[in-house]
Structure formats: structure tokens, C-alpha cells
């Protein structure tokens, strides 16, 4: 569907993107994830056409659109701040793209009614000025505006930032529902790994203008290919040489283990039994509880499902064990 | 809301474009008339067409000559500047009004050209020796006072007394601008007394001290001199041009007296001249020949209270006109003064104006 081939973008002496190769499939929810300044927005703007790449090509369905003007690409976009036109009503905002395409008035009305229904904007909201809407309503207007012209692709640039936590989660769910309903190829930019993991079919993790890893959420999470990815995604324990000394694992590699892969008092057959460690504190999250553990000088964290009562007391000793295949090991100096 | 603006703006645009096109058409017809060279149009530049005088001239010229007069009425200094700015492509045909200094400026910039009308030799005073311009109206530039506030016995006998005699300090008004014809004529009359080719800018030190004192002890005014005299500022005397007196006496309830200095009164010559490179030279010459005749000047002066330069035109005018005409003219060395006036005015502006 979208084929990014060897994309590089330079701003003067600064390389914002180097050698990006991505193929996004039809109907896929694809996320560009990375810390701020990693180049993810630049890549999105290259796809939508606001930025021309220094080298490489952007193709959609086999057609090279690298040099095509923004307005001719038919790629929808939802901006970080929604960029709703303040001088227009909700209806006019959504109608804008259709009017530009010189679609007959009657058809415009029909299409807008349809999309408004699907994003759940009611009749009275349609006549309002955009600054009279709540954040959630604004997001739906922005999405409706982007979708009403039936673009082949929709790009979303951190549409959930600057919103409070609850609204964020609510909108995240709405977003996913909408994407399913419309079945449209979606490219989503975020720095929030949780958002990326929950929403995406596939994720590309970017760092310093390069792709660190491209894969499905579980691949990214469980099989982080680089030290950067494993640190950026989710909580992780770094196993110190002192900790590893007690095992016969190789010491020349940097070794990590996910919190949930470290077991307390629950050894399994294929586990390496590490031994006693002391619980030093706990954090209550509702769904689960996070414990901090002192393993003879190495501070580690583990999670346990919340079963209603505290499992471990502070100061209590637990028996640590883990599956060696769940370890993430990297050559030293890998972390760029 | 913006829609209303858009509609409104649209409406105004259409309206004004219409008006604009209409205006262009008018311009076009004027040019056609000019290009046609039928000699039926004259563009008259003047500083003396206010109070209906321009319309009077236009009506009479149309009736007597069949010439259409287009008037450009602008203050004297601006008029001269505009004529100079347009020198490469003159828009004017005839200039009327001004004063000796401005005439000199036009002459110096080759703006006007010789044309000697038939009535020229009947004018005793004010014609240009080479026939570049000819006098039509005489204006006396007087020191006047309100006899209700200062009686004739107390009044000064000549200009310098105003600043040399402390009793008059703060009792005379001085305009806060030097642009007017009257103010420059009055200054000429004073400068003329202190000519010294070795002095600063051709004026003796004593002369500059007098000029400085004139401004130092006068009441600076931005309004009509009569209004200033009638107003609360304490000024009871000022300069005035002769034909401005009668109407102001009535308007401000002033009982006018004026001074007739021994050296005479500085008189301005309002003249008429043909513009160098005029678009309608033939009509312009006909207009000038007609305008300065005794009959026309008589009617014009009678209508607007002027003192005509043509002696035959004076007959039958109110006595005030004869009194003014009978005043002694101060002999002013215009060849020395006119070229230097600009520098002097600058010197005053930079150093003495309050």
C-alpha cells in the first residue's frame, strides 16, 4: 500500500531521517513510535507531502508520489492540535475538503450526515463553532474532516497528546473503533509506547532518524532487537554482572529481563533458580502490584497480579527464578 | 459574520469601481479635449481661486471666450512646488496669483514663459521686465490693530517699534508658519532695510537681531490673525493683507486701524503668466489677454474686494480700495531678496521661530 523506500531527509547539515524503508499494508494500523526528536513527525510529514525527502521515494499502491503536491495526495491527516478552522462551524470544517473537490452540494450534505453519524456528532454540534466543543468532540471533528473525503490513507500526528489521562484512554478506544469501522490504512505517530502497543498492528520504533525495529507489538515488546527498543518499551530490569555471577550466563553481554518474566516463589521447570532476595517496597496499581526487590545489591522490580491481599511484606525474602529464554541480551555498546 | 463583511465589501467594491470608471471617463474626456487642441480649455493653477473666485472666472471665461477653465487651487508655496515638480511634463497652462518671491522661483526654474498681453503697458507697477508675468491685483501687506483695544495714538508707526518698544511686547501676533504670502512679504519689507552683502546670508547683524526680536516678543499664533486679535491671548496687532480687512472687521467686531510706515507698505503683485510648455498655449494666451483687461478686472475687484493693478479698473470701487491703492509702495530690491528668501526663512525656522 505505502512503500517508503530509502527515505532520507536532511535539514542543512542535520540528518533528520536516514535510510528509512517501510512497507505499510492495506488496512493496517501502523505506528511510528519514538522519543521526541527521533524523526517520526518528519517521516509522517514526508508521507503527507509537507516535506520533500532529500533522497528516496514514497509510493502509494505502486505509484510514486514523492514529488506530488500535498493537495493532490489524497492522504488524510489529523494534526496534533487538530488544526480545526476557527472561522468555520463544525459542518463547514468537515465540508471543506469536499468543497475543495467541487463535489455537488447535495452529495456533500449526504456524505457529512453519514460521517457525522459514524463519528457520533449530532445535529446541534454540527452548527457550532469549533471552539465551543470539548476535546473529544474536537478530535472527532478532526477525524471526520480527514475521513469524509475518503482518503486511501489517514495519518495521525500525536492526536492524544495534551489531553488529560482519562480522556486520552477514552479517545484511544474511540480511535481504534473508528479505524476498525472504516478499515482504513492508518499511520499513527506517538511517543507513548502504551498507546502504540494497544492500537497498532505493527510498529516502527525510530531513534535518531533511523528505524530501530519494525514489527508487531508483541515482537517489539518481547523480542526487542536493540537495547534502545527494550529500554524504550515498557518497564525492564537490567541484570548487573554481580547478579549474573551467580548463574552461568555469559557476562560479556548487557542483559535485561521484563518485570513479568522475573518470578518470586514460583519456580518452573525450565527456570534458572537464582535464590533469595529481599522485598524493599511496593507500589499499588490496582490491577497489579509492583515490588522492588534487593537481590544482594542489585535492585530489581517484579509485578504480581492483585488478588486482594498483599502477597509480600516489606522485608520478606522471596525466591527469584526466571526462564533464560526470556532474557534480552545485547552486545556491549549496542545502546546508541 | 464574515459573510456579511464579504457581501459588504463586495457591494462597496462594485460601487467604487463603478465610480472609479466613471471618474476615468471624465479624465479621458478631459484629455481628449486637450489633445483635440481645439483651444477651448485652460488649466488654471492658482492660489487665489477660493471663496468662489475660481467659479466666477470659469463662468465668465466660458461666457466671454468659450473657454473651459479647469481650476487647481493650491496654497502658494505648494503651488510653486507642484509646478516645479511637474516641469518635465507641465499640466498647467496659466498661473495666476502668487507673490514676487514665488514668481522669482518660477522664473528661476523656467516654469513660465514670455507672453505680453495687450493691456500690459497700461499697468504702472509690478510687471516683469521681460514680460514673463504681468500684474493684475495689488495686495498691501499691512500692520493693523483693533482700535477697541489700542487707540491710534498709542499704536506704533512702523514695524520695528513692535519689538524695539517694550510696551508692545506680547501685544502683537506672529503666525507660527512662514508659508503664507503675507508673512513673507512683511519679512521682505524688514529684510530690505538691513541688506548688507557682507553680513550673514546678506543681512547685517542688526537685521538679524531685529528679526530675532520680532519672533521673540510676538505671540505665536496658529489661527487667523483676526481671530488671534479678538481672542484672549493679549495680542491686539498683527499683519494683514489689505483685502482681508473689511470682512474681518465685521466678523470679529474689530475696529480696524492700520499703520502707514514712512518707508512705505510692502505690496504683493498677484500676476498672471503663461506656463512654459503649456498643453493649450493658444487658449491660454487668449485667456490672459482677456483676464487682465480693465473691465474684467473692475468687475472681478468689485465682486471680491480687491485692489486692481490696472488704474482704469479702480474707478467706481469702494473708497477703501482707493485708500489702499493710494498707499506708498515700499521699494524692495527683489533681485537681491527673492533669491535669498529661502535661506532666510530657513535661518528663521531653525533659529528664531517660537
Amino acid at each position, binding site marked *: 500500500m505505502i512503500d517508503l523506500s530509502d527515505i532520507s531527509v536532511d535539514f542543512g547539515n542535520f540528518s533528520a531521517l536516514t535510510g528509512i524503508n517501510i512497507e505499510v499494508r492495506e488496512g493496517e494500523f501502523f505506528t511510528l513510535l519514538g522519543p521526541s526528536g527521533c524523526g517520526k513527525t518528519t517521516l509522517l510529514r514526508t508521507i503527507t507531502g*509537507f516535506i520533500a525527502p532529500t533522497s528516496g521515494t514514497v509510493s502509494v499502491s505502486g505509484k510514486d508520489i514523492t514529488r506530488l*503536491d500535498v*493537495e493532490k*495526495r*489524497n*492522504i*488524510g*491527516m489529523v*494534526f496534533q*492540535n487538530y*488544526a480545526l*478552522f*476557527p472561522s468555520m462551524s463544525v459542518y463547514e470544517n468537515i465540508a*471543506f*475538503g469536499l468543497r*475543495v*473537490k467541487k463535489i455537488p452540494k447535495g452529495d456533500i450534505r449526504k456524505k457529512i450526515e453519514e460521517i457525522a453519524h459514524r463519528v457520533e456528532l449530532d445535529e446541534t454540534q454540527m452548527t457550532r463553532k469549533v*471552539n465551543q466543543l470539548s476535546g473529544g468532540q474536537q478530535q472527532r471533528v478532526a477525524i471526520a474532516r*480527514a475521513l469524509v473525503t475518503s482518503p486511501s490513507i489517514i495519518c495521525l500526528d500525536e492526536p492524544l497528546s*495534551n489531553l488529560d489521562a482519562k480522556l486520552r484512554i477514552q479517545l484511544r478506544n474511540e480511535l481504534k473503533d473508528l479505524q476498525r469501522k472504516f478499515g482504513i490504512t492508518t499511520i499513527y505517530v506517538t511517543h507513548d509506547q502504551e498507546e502504540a502497543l494497544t492500537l497498532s498492528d505493527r510498529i516502527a520504533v525510530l531513534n535518531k532518524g533511523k528505524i530501530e525495529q519494525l514489527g508487531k507489538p508483541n515482537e517489539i515488546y518481547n523480542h526487542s532487537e536493540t537495547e534502545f527498543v527494550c529500554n524504550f518499551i515498557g518497564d525492564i530490569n537490567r541484570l548487573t554482572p554481580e547478579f549474573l555471577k551467580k548463574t552461568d550466563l555469559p557476562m560479556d553481554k548487557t542483559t535485561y529481563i521484563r518485570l513479568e518474566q522475573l518470578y518470586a516463589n514460583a519456580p518452573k521447570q525450565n527456570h534458572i533458580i537464582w535464590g533469595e532476595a529481599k522485598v524493599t517496597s511496593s507500589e499499588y496499581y490496582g490491577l497489579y502490584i509492583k515490588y522492588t526487590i534487593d537481590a544482594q545489591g542489585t535492585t530489581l522490580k517484579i509485578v504480581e497480579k492483585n488478588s486482594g491481599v498483599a502477597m509480600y511484606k516489606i522485608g520478606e525474602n522471596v525466591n527469584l527464578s526466571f526462564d533464560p529464554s526470556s532474557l534480552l541480551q545485547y552486545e556491549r555498546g549496542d545502546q546508541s | *459574520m*464574515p459573510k456579511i463583511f464579504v457581501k*459588504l465589501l463586495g457591494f462597496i467594491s462594485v460601487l*467604487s469601481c463603478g*465610480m472609479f470608471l466613471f*471618474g476615468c471617463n*471624465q*479624465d479621458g474626456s*478631459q484629455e481628449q479635449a486637450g489633445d483635440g487642441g481645439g483651444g477651448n480649455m485652460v488649466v488654471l493653477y492658482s492660489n*487665489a481661486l*477660493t471663496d468662489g473666485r475660481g467659479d466666477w472666472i470659469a463662468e465668465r471665461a466660458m461666457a466671454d471666450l468659450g473657454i473651459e477653465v479647469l481650476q487647481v*487651487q493650491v*496654497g502658494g508655496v*505648494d503651488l510653486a*512646488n*507642484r509646478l516645479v*515638480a*511637474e516641469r518635465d*511634463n507641465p*499640466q498647467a497652462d496659466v498661473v495666476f496669483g502668487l507673490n514676487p518671491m514665488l514668481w522669482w*522661483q518660477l522664473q528661476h526654474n523656467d516654469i513660465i514663459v514670455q507672453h505680453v498681453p495687450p493691456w500690459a503697458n497700461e499697468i504702472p507697477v509690478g510687471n516683469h521686465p521681460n514680460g514673463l508675468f504681468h500684474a493684475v491685483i495689488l495686495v498691501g501687506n499691512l500692520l493693523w490693530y483693533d482700535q477697541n483695544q489700542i487707540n491710534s495714538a498709542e499704536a506704533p508707526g512702523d514695524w520695528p517699534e513692535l519689538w524695539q518698544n517694550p510696551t508692545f511686547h506680547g501685544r502683537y501676533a506672529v503666525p507660527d508658519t512662514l508659508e503664507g504670502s503675507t508673512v513673507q512679504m512683511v519679512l521682505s519689507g524688514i529684510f530690505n532695510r538691513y541688506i548688507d552683502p557682507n553680513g550673514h546670508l546678506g543681512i547685517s547683524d542688526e537685521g538679524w537681531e531685529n528679526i530675532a526680536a520680532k519672533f521673540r516678543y510676538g505671540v505665536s499664533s*496658529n489661527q*487667523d490673525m*483676526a*481671530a*488671534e486679535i479678538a481672542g*484672549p491671548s493679549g495680542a491686539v496687532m498683527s499683519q494683514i*493683507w489689505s483685502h*482681508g480687512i473689511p470682512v*474681518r472687521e465685521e*466678523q*470679529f467686531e474689530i475696529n480696524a486701524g492700520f499703520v502707514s510706515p514712512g518707508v512705505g507698505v510692502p505690496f504683493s503683485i498677484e500676476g498672471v503668466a503663461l506656463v512654459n510648455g503649456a498643453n493649450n498655449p493658444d487658449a491660454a494666451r487668449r485667456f490672459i489677454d482677456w483676464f487682465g483687461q480693465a473691465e474684467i478686472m473692475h468687475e472681478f475687484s468689485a465682486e471680491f*474686494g480687491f485692489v486692481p493693478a490696472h488704474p482704469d479698473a479702480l474707478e467706481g470701487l469702494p473708497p477703501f480700495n482707493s485708500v489702499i491703492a493710494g498707499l506708498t509702495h515700499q521699494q524692495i530690491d527683489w533681485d537681491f531678496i527673492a533669491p535669498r528668501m*529661502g535661506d532666510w*526663512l*530657513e535661518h528663521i*525656522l*531653525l*533659529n528664531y521661530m*517660537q
Partner: protein
Amino acid sequence: MSLTKKNITQATIFTGLVWFIVVFLIAPNITTVTDVFWQDGEFTMRAIERMRNAPRAMQALRNSFIIAPVLSVTVGFVGVTLVLITDYFKVFGAKILRLGYMTTLLYSGIVLVSGYVFLYGNNGFVTNILVQIFPNLEQDWFSGFWAVLFVMTFAATGNHMIFIRNALRSVDYQTIEVARNLGASSFTILWRVVLPVLLPSLTAVTVFTFLGGLSAIAAPLLVGGPDFRAITPLILQLSRLQGSRDIAALLALILGVSSILLIAVFSLLEKRGHYLSVSKVKTDLVKQKIRNPVVNVFVHIYAYVLFLIYISPVVMIVLFSFTDSRTIARREFNFSALTLDNYIAALTQNFSPFMTSAIYSFLAATGVAVLMLLVCRIITKHKGKASTAIEYAFMIPWLLPTVLIAWGLVATFNRPQWFMFNQPLANTTTIMVLGYLIICIPFTLRMTRASFFSIDDTLEDAAKNLGAKPMYAFLRIIIPVILPSVLAIFALNFNRLLAEFDMSVFMYNPLSVPLGVEIENLTMAGDSGGDSAELVFVYTVIIMAISALVLYLVYGRNSKIGID
């Protein structure tokens, strides 16, 4: 870069702008400057010497450079407080107060100052009251630096009532609520939360206050007295003397260059400190109640004293417009002297000068608005040396007084010039409109540019993304956002041009006499018709009415349209 259609369009526009700059801004002024500084075939700087030998002129120059910064502070303070009174705090009668404060948008110059002189000058109303209380007070107490400062402070707040009010509407009310929630006092909120948002507009407006101070004419002339002469009246007079135009140009260049330096400094400040609202869900400002009762009383007193100061000169002018010149001269007002004769005289005059000026002003104000929108668009879109050069080139009209610009235009265009396609422009409608347009450029450019800062770039991206061509996106999205400001600027330009004199007198066509020239001719002191000061007032009142109407039409009704 290949020769795409887009590139060709851009190149055409760029060439067009450069052509405009060279032909209408640079060429005529070069004509003027060479004519002025080249005498007898050689370049002369005699003007510098003459100026330095004139202590009074130097003093006047110093005075102007004193009043300008002081004025920037006083006007800034009064202007901001006016806006806070009408739109930020809950003040009783705010709507009426606002009308009073906005009166300075309707009149200016000599007439405005005359209004103050009727009150505070010799035999003025206030003076007479004061003399009864303080018998030792001189009748002409209202004179000198303080009088000029007083008059000009209240005369120059008009721009604040438009542009600072616009800016105040873009304050996100949530930020105020948050600040209060964090325990900030009303003063802290005002100082740290509200004022920073007003800052870009305040900066832009302050530039004009400063320039207004530098180029003050009427106030120093009428109430400056011998102790406080300013430089601009001097420049004006010198610029009309053929032999002194060099010194006039030199003085004007000093003012012009300092203005542009000031602009450069302020542009830097503007870049550093402009705060856009970042919130996604902005809420409208709610008027703040002043909780401290003492402060509340004080603010109300302040508000109404200012109201009186603003409204009374207008009342004076309207009243005196119904009297005769003797009453005006003596400043002895009585109701029995009132008459309608002046208005009958004025309104039975030929009405075409009103139409002529309205059309010229409309065309010029529209033209300059469109041109400056284009320029601002270019200089905000393509940052670089070329666009900076263009921006500064459009400030050239600040370098010379209007009279000299007019002189340059006439002298340059009254003969065919190849760069003007061999079309002489003398006495055409075109040159009048051009002249009017040129003198409006700097103000329009500055204020339009300031409003461009308030635009969110992503709006245009969004429009393009939806398939709009850049031009369409600009017209449909950007223009509506800045329309209130553009219209306000249009109205101010229109009103300013309506009675324009300095430019008109040089180039008007005898078939279409503009209003400024007509009024000057009707009221010119110097002829047998007598003094007609009352007609000046009558025309002022009529023009005030027209200006008020224009402001109302394009600006007054949109109390809800703010800049987001």
C-alpha cells in the same frame, strides 16, 4: 529546481514585488534625494552644517527624542488599562466607557488638540474653573512638555483599543483559572499570565506610539509653547521651502532611520516573545471581578476620570462646530450663539469631494491591505535574506516626509519612464491612489505582520492536506482568521486618508478634488472670505461621523470574532 507552474507563479510574484519596490518606493525617492543633495552638479552635505549651527533645531530634535520614549510608556500604560477596564475587569458601564475611549479613532491632528485647548488653554473651561480655585494660576498654564505629553497620551490610545483588545480575546481563560487555582493574586495573573499574551500586539502598537511621538505635529505646535518645540513641524515647513528641502530630508532621514532601527529591535523582541495558546480546548475570557473593594472603587474612579478626559474634547468640538468664528476665537461659549448655518453651508457645498476622497481612500486602503497581505505571506513563509530585504524596503516611506515623497512621485512619473511602461502618470487617478497607498504601507505592513503571528501554521497544512491549493487555503483559512485585524487596519487607513492633504495637494486632478484640498481651500485663512475656523470644526464633525460609520461597519459589530 525544475520550472514547475508553482515556481513560475512564485517568480512572477517576486518579480512583481521587486518591481513595485524599485518603481514606486526607490526610484521616486532617489529622484528626491539626488535633487535635494546634489546642487550644481555635486553632492553637498551643507545641510549637516546648517543644522548643527542651529541650536533651536537641535533642541527640537532632542525634544522629539524625549517625548517619543516617554510617550511610549504613558500611552502603553493608559492604553492597556483602557482595554482592561472595558474588556477584562467587571467595571460598571463598560460599554459606554468603551465608546468614549474609542473617540480618538475618529479624529486627530490640529482639531483634536484644539479640543483640548478649549478646555485647558487660555480662557478654557477647565482653566477658568482652576483659576477660581487657584487664583495664582497663569491663564496659559497648559503649555510645554507636560501639556504635550498629556494631550498626546490620550490622543494615541486608539490603536490599543483595537489591537490590544483583539489580543486580549486570545487569552485562554483556563490559564487564568489555573493560575488562580495555583494561588496567584489578581495582580500576578495580570502580570504573568495575561500581559505576556498581549505583548506581541503591545510591541507592534508601541512602535507606532513611538513614531507618533517622533512625528508629533499638532500637540507641540498648539500646546508646546516656546519651551517645547518638536522637530516634525519644522521638517514640514522646511520641506516646503525649495532651498531647504535638503535639511528637511536630512532631519526626516534621522527620524526615519531611528524608526527603522527601532522596528528592527522590536522585531527581535517579537521573535523571542510571542506566545501562542497551546491548549486544544480554549475557553472564552470571563470578566474578572475586582475583589478588593478599595481597589474596585479606585478603578471605577480612574475609569470615569479617563472617560471625561476622552469625551470632553469631542463635546467641545461638536459644540463649537455650531458656533461662529468669533465665538471660537474668544472661546466664549454660550448656548444662544448656537446655529445650524455652518452645517447648512458645509452640506450645501459641492458634495463630490467627499465621494472623490471616499473612492480614492477605499481603493488605496483596499490595495494596501491586499498588497501587504501578500507581502506578509511571503515574508512569513520564506524566511531569508530576500524576504527581510523586501520587508525593510517597504518601510522606505518612513524615511521621508509625505511632502517629499509626493514631490518624488510627481517628478518621476510626470514623464514617461520605461519602468512604468512609458505611461506618464501625472494628474491621473492612478498616481493619487498610488500616493495614498504608499503612505499607508509601513503601518499596514507592521500591523498585518503582527496579526500573522497569531496564525497557527497547521491550519494551512490541514487545508492543503484536504486538497486545497495554497491560494485557496490562504483565502479560505488564513484570511478569515486575520480578517478582524485586516478590516480594522483597513478602516484606520481609510479614515486617515479621507482628509489627506500633503500628498493630495501635489497630485490631485482638477476634475476630482479630494476632500483634504477642498477643506483647506474652503477654510484657508488668507482671503477676502474671512476666517472660517468654524467650517474646520464642521468638517471634522462630518468626517468623524463618516469614520465612526466605517469603523462600525467593518469592525464594531463583531464583538464575538476574536483572533484564535
